[in-house]
């Protein structure tokens, strides 16, 4: 094995000063009324502390992830040089493709949603929200989705660098300060507008725009939803959390899964609670995003259109 197993540079570490400066700048510009941004003190504290805790949690599983990548790489199929431009283009596309499916899985199957949901728990959308990262992602095992890239022959260091680049890219799109990018950018890349939709809880916007860097995957696989000016994004999750406790942010869905498993009456039910869509229940009494979207669609087509169901009272 001649290629380096671990990266000589870590894009995320290098970008940390930029993260800090960008957050401070967004706050100050919002204070001066120059850009749109809303910050709430406790919400921001929760986001930043989740980011801090995520770094510590990552250390606990980082060794396993690294060892697995290196082990798989011993059996690589092709020799892919880190010095070749085509190799970097290939890893850019393949890593982003992998990220799309990782992200989609993390939203559409409850076990992995439990690890990812914390990132969506803020009812705000600002650069601090970007740092509201998972504590349990390593334990949930989604890192295994990147192992085929090592098997193909991409050195683990190369994969790690590209994953870092993707994470750094995704920081700046967590903002309301940028309304729309030029048309060609919006067509090709994940942008603040596309990602606002991803963080929205409006039924119209649920389970969409899973992209990391390139939005083309969502367009290809039918999960792209554009942001509409007439329907502003409402951020958060379908059932928002009742307080800012970071342990609740990190573990609430895991506790929910555990509670449900205790009530499971068969293996089928246990499987459904673990790997069904978030909101799945044996009797259908809860609502998955598919159900919520269908209800919303029905309301849109109902005649006469009744926009305020509370009007009857």
């Amino acid at each position, binding site marked *: 094995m001649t290629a380096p197993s671990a990266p000589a540079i870590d894009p995320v570490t290098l970008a940390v000063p930029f993260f800090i400066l960008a957050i401070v700048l967004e706050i100050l510009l919002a204070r001066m009324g120059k850009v749109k941004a809303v910050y709430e003190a406790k919400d921001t504290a929760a986001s930043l502390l989740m980011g*801090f805790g995520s770094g510590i949690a990552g250390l606990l599983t980082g060794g396993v992830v690294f060892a697995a990548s290196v082990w798989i790489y011993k059996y690589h199929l092709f020799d892919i040089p880190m010095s070749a431009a085509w190799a970097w283009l290939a890893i850019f596309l393949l890593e982003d493709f992998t990220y799309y499916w990782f992200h989609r899985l993390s939203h559409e199957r409850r076990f992995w949603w439990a690890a990812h949901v914390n990132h969506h728990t803020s009812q705000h959308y600002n650069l601090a929200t970007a740092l509201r990262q998972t504590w349990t992602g390593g334990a949930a095992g989604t890192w295994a989705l990147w192992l085929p890239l090592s098997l193909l022959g991409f050195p683990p260091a190369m994969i790690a660098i590209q994953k870092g680049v993707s994470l750094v890219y995704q920081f700046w799109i967590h903002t309301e300060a940028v309304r729309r990018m030029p048309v060609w950018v919006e067509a090709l890349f994940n942008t603040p507008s596309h990602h606002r939709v991803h963080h929205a809880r409006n039924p119209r916007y649920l389970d969409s725009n899973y992209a990391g860097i390139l939005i083309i995957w969502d367009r290809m696989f039918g999960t792209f939803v554009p942001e509409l000016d007439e329907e502003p994004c409402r951020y958060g999750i379908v059932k928002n959390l009742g307080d800012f406790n970071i342990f609740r942010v990190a573990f609430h869905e895991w506790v929910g899964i555990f509670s449900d498993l205790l009530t499971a009456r068969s293996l089928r039910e246990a499987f459904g609670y673990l790997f069904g869509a978030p909101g799945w229940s044996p009797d259908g009494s809860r609502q998955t995003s598919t159900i919520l979207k269908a209800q919303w669609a029905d309301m849109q087509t109902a005649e006469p259109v009744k926009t305020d169901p509370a009007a009857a009272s």
Partner: protein
Amino acid sequence: MAKDIVTSGLRWVTLDAGHGAVEGRQKSGAASVTLKYIITQLVTLSIVGGIMGLVAWVKIPRATPPLDEAEVKRRLAEDFPQTPLDQIWLALDGAGALAKSGDLALLLFRMGDSYVSRSMAWSNAVQAEAIKGRFWFRFNDFSAPNASLALAPNWTLAVKGETNV
């Protein structure tokens, strides 16, 4: 032969087996890495504290004017679509509301500059404990264990169509 591996900003040192002479260096290297890690975490926490202080100082949350009935209906309609409301009780401080919908109670309560909603059985809602001018509603839900609303002390007496609440 020692081989440096740099990952996530930390320098790791791996050693081939049988090179006892470098054990001392390995131990001091590990201590150095640990110290560097602790310092990095302390600096990070300081920056986190600084940003939290800045946010508290600049005060740029959403505006949260007292809720009125129309706003409560609008917000509950978002979270409980196609759910008719029989009656609404606004919190005295304007920071929440309770609504009756058949045998369900729909609650809306403020969290920071945002709102959270939950539903519970009406029969449980009317048994909410009153503590220091607030009614405490307990949900069987780890994601939102409870909510408190500053409702009028005799709010249960005003339930339409019920005489024995």
